[in-house]
């Protein structure tokens, strides 16, 4: 099975994020960059599927040349080859989805597995958009994937429980947190990654309209947490929840 795994480079979740004083973005001077954790889960799932059957795992990302580092990490985990669609522009979800749909058209994968969302902007849009553009079935928030021949069944995490849906390939699946625990990039894997193909394509050579439909007007840090207040008894707590917070 040929699997395309789009990934995104994001700040390390353990990094303290600071918003620039003018609100145009975040300070990136000493941020450590990693593969978006949900994308890492997507890579792991693609590798497991490949290991059970046979096939190929192709990584793709859209960004600057420094994003190579995250592709190399994915190759070190075991992916077969990678594509960097190069652009210096900050693209919105729709533009990314158009690029990925174009790449999917060229590569003709059986499956596209990607993270359900990126932890930087939490948009949760790209997977759904790509499925729509390609006219393929989609299973978002996957927590379990089973494959039999060309039929796939996916258990999804939905509000209030789990839902299992079945469909045929080609399809788009987005990975949720509990799908798997990603492997480490082993040292021999890191050495092998050096020899794997990493192809660069200029984003503006794809003939896709990348004009942003969304504009980020300003970024602001969340308000500082106020200290709580102590109550004397459970009765007082219940009464405050009812009269003041009005949640019960």
């Amino acid at each position, binding site marked *: 099975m040929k699997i395309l795994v789009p990934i995104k480079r994001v700040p390390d979740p*353990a*990094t*303290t994020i*600071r918003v620039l004083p003018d609100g145009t973005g975040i300070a990136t001077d*000493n*941020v*450590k960059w990693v593969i978006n954790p949900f994308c890492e889960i997507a890579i792991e799932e693609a590798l497991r599927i490949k290991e059970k059957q046979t096939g190929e795992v192709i990584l793709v990302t859209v960004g600057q040349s420094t994003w*190579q*580092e995250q592709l*190399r*990490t994915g190759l*070190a985990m075991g992916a077969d080859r990678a594509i960097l669609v190069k652009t210096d522009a900050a693209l919105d979800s729709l533009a990314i989805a158009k690029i990925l749909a174009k790449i999917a058209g060229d590569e003709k994968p059986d499956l596209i597995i990607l993270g359900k969302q990126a932890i930087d902007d939490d948009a949760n849009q790209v997977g759904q958009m790509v499925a729509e553009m390609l006219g393929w079935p989609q299973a978002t928030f996957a927590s379990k994937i089973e494959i039999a021949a060309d039929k796939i069944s996916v258990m999804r995490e939905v509000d209030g429980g789990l839902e299992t849906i079945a469909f045929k390939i080609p399809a788009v699946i987005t990975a949720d947190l509990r799908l798997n625990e990603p492997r*480490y*990039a*082993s*040292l*021999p*894997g*890191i*050495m092998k*990654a*050096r020899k794997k193909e990493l192809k660069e394509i200029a984003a503006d050579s794809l003939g896709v309209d990348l004009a942003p439909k969304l504009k980020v007007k300003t970024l602001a840090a969340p308000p500082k947490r106020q200290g709580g207040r102590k109550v004397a008894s459970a009765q007082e707590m219940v009464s405050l929840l009812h009269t003041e917070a009005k949640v019960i």
Partner: protein
Amino acid sequence: MLDLLRDLDFFHLDELLTDEERMARDTAKRFVDREIIPQIEHHFANETFPMHLVPQMAELGMFGANLKGYGCAGMNNVAYGLIMQELEAGDSGLRSFASVQSALSMYAIYANGSEEQKQRYLPEMAKGKLIGCFGLTEPDHGSDPGGMETRARRDGDGWILNGTKRWITNGSIADVAIVWAKVEEGITGFLVEKGTPGFSTRDIHGKFSMRASITSELILEDVRIPRTAHLEKARGLKGPLGCLTQARYGIAWGAIGAARSCFHCALDYTKSRKQFSRPLAGYQLVQAKLVRMLTEITKAQMVCLRLAHLKDQGKMRPEHVSFAKRNNVNEALKIARDARDMLGANGIVNEYPVIRHMLNLETVNTYEGTFDVHTLILGRDITGENAFE
């Protein structure tokens, strides 16, 4: 305030690393955070080595990571050093295991073994299926290995070994022991497999340090081994000392990891604990200690990175390694002691890692060339005068 403090990279040394080196470091760091930190206090308390982690460390390529061929990862010395640093941020005992397996045992065979010996041992050792140990130190000969009493004499087609080795990391769990012994021509090495008649081990208990690491005595009583178990290329003290240079290189890196762990613990603790009117970190005496820690760790990082580049270029001398091992371990020990002090009573319990690192570093300061021995090595280097005897 600097985010750089999170990984304690005050001078942006990360920018001097390649993608591959960073990836290797991140893999080791994640492994330590996920697999070692949650259970290390248990092993330290119970004087056990977490043997179940060995297959995973092997799969990640941590054994003989900087050796080429024979199933080893073949990484450069920067990556190897960074891995040692991260392992020791977990525990010096874990790093010791990796050092002994890689830099002492595998390297001894890699540098001194015949092609048959390399083929037989190295791939299995890289896979963690065979564990090695390195028998040089004896009960009465530590800093003076040339005075060793272990003897080997020819016996027909093979050799007969007699003697005792002590303070041997991994001794009783090793499948193959590199035993250094005197023959008529001088010092040479032998491969003694577990179960060879006359070869036994005894673990050393009652340690207050390196409790998550096995330390043993090797006892050789008329142990007969075949000719094929002789490391023929090892002639003179150069044989074992060449291995020690490799291990000391990793220790110089490792000490930074232990020191960093203590620094972070002391920083977090003193920022959150309030005494009198404000957090401890708001007092000058505490800040002076934190700044000293930051300074010494940063200097040690710089020394190690330069040392790694010299090693990769084939320009590293043993004296460079003595400089780095001596300085980094001793500073790490001082940092651990300061951190212990700054945590007050909490510094003596295993809820925090500092007392464990502090106790471990007492060993690290002593083994692989004591602080004083490295002082003499450097003293000889700059004066031309030998002050050993």
